[in-house]
């Protein structure tokens, strides 16, 4: 039972992180390699707001989430918008540079020391008994609920809202979408905002559960195979990819060797790239190598 609980928690974490990769990629075909740093920045913003609004933890929490949303918008307007029309690889390189810049800036401002935002918000993180001797922390439970709510909200958004349909249209054929009057920049900006928001939520929850230091950015790299395995432009795929990667990781810790768990996500990824390079639910794309 505890092993199952461990898998569910890890699936929720990976799913929450990987949907940020998917949201941007499915709309713009840009792989945001600064996702981990943006996620981490949201957690540091929570820390800063926790100090600023001492005694008002919910204001700090909501503020950090809103700021992470705004961060995506600003990043697109200031930085990524200029990459429109350029080679996709250029945009990806910009995100790498952005990640390096953010990591450096975070260390300069907050140093590399370990923080515990949950203490600053004066919250506790007691375990919740699940029966049969299994337990998870309260924040882990909130992470599961948040992941489910996020994916449900995204499903409704893409299926039933005008902006969701526009976003899908831009993802499928930006030229045609633009000719039909869809504002491309507004759509891309929204995708960036949604991605930094969901990533920010993941970063905030991770920092509340296990503390915060600059190693958090690395966590996003472990969720990256989950997004790729599922298919980089499919939210459904992100869930399935997270499930496969998290299950393989936890079971390898439990029954094989903990050291294997570190490479298992990438092993799964390699196998998937060999068998079905576009992932379980991704769109088959042709790569022009000329």
């Amino acid at each position, binding site marked *: 039972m505890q092993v199952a609980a461990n898998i569910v928690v890890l699936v929720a*974490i990976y799913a929450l992180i990987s949907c940020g990769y998917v949201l941007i990629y499915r709309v713009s075909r840009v792989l945001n390699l600064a996702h981990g740093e943006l996620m981490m920045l949201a957690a540091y913003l929570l820390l800063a707001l926790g100090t600023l609004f001492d005694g008002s933890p919910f204001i700090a929490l909501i503020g950090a989430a809103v700021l992470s949303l705004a961060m995506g918008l600003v990043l697109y307007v200031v930085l990524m918008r200029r990459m429109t029309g350029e080679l996709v690889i250029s945009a990806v390189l910009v995100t790498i540079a952005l990640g390096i810049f953010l990591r450096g800036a975070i260390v300069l401002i907050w140093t590399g020391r370990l923080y515990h935002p949950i203490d600053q918000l004066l919250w506790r993180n007691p375990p919740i*008994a699940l029966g049969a001797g299994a337990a998870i922390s309260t924040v882990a439970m909130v992470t599961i609920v948040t992941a489910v709510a996020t994916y449900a909200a995204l499903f409704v958004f893409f299926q039933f809202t005008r902006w969701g349909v526009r976003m899908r249209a831009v993802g499928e054929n930006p030229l045609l979408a633009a000719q039909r009057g869809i504002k491309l920049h507004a759509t891309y900006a929204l995708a960036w905002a949604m991605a930094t928001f969901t990533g920010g939520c993941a970063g905030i929850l991770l920092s509340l559960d296990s503390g915060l230091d600059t190693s958090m950015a690395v966590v996003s790299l472990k969720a990256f195979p989950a997004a790729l395995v599922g298919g980089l432009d499919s939210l459904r795929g992100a869930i399935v990819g997270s499930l496969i990667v998290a299950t393989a990781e936890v079971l390898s*810790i439990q029954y094989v060797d903990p050291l294997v*768990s570190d490479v298992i996500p990438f092993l799964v990824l390699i196998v998937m790239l060999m068998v079905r390079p576009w992932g379980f639910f991704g769109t088959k794309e042709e790569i022009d190598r000329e």
Partner: protein
Amino acid sequence: MNTIFAKRFAIVALACMAAAPTAALAADPYVVGLTGDMTGPDAGNSGAVADTVRIYFEKVNERGGINGHPVQVIIRDNQSQPSRAASDAQEFVNDPNLLIIVTASLSSTYVPTISESKQHGVPVLFAGGVCPTEVFPPANPLLFCTSGYAADKDAEYAVDYVRSVSPGNVTVGFVSMAIPISRGGMEHGAAVAESKGMKVGDHEIIPPTTVSFSPYATKLKAADVDWVISWAPWITQVKAFEALRELGWQGKFITYAHNVAEEELKRIKDPGFLVFGTNAMFIGNQPVHQDIIAAAQGKTKFPYTYLNEGWIASITLEAALKKVPWPPTRAKLVEVMNDLTIDMRGMRGGPIVWTKDNHFRRELFYRVYGWNSTQNSIEVVKDWVRMDVK
């Protein structure tokens, strides 16, 4: 009149000429190069050491320097990257005035630094990370270490402590990070535990990029361990402990006291969570701790409780430089460091004693701290215990 003036002028001119070289010499600094991780993965630990060395020698210079000479500390950020450490070391060894390289970063940066040190005869002081094996007897002539970390010795002490408080049947679990120094230390600890009649229930080797520690805690709990011993980067140690408590494990956990330990004991407030180490915590309120607090005021973003290791390295370096006759050379400094005893002023259980063969220290002193929930404060669970380093 003119003759008198001419005589006085000549005297003043001669005095000035005589004084000129002395004044120039007085302004010449002792040059020290520090390559540390200030923005990399170990910035939380090594960054504090680098900050402390800077702060300490700023104070020394304010007091007039050492033997009338200021100390110039050239600081470089190597981000714990071997390539950057190599480039820092090359810069340092090629500076003819530089006397010593101080390093404070992950052990992955040691090889290039040691290689440059050997080629150019520059001494290296390991001030922040784990001490390399080359400083233990028989020591490499150029390598010295002040930091508290010594994986195998630390593991031996932790096992001894557990044995002393749990003399009967006891099952012990070990937690390490999947890096050679941590894993090796805990494997050594497990072997020592078995030799002392303890049952080793489990050894979890946790990768550095771990997201959730619950799967590892699940295995430790299933192994029914009474004690867990850990020697790893702090985050691995504390997250493993917290994951165990989350699963309802009621055993005791003893782990290495990194510079963050004092803050963390106050946060965790669990009497079953013990830390052991070689540095005295600030709760002891020694005069030297007051000095550190006063010196650090407004000069670092790190809490003062992080500054122990850097301060120890700095007082050691100051003591060594004080004994080097002017003009200083690398060889003279090495000669001094080969026979040096430094009073730790209460920051450790005893002095650091370096000899020609031993550049670590002849004696190690360990203390165990824990949380006293009745008094709601940190307490010394076991006072200094001495171990010989042979």
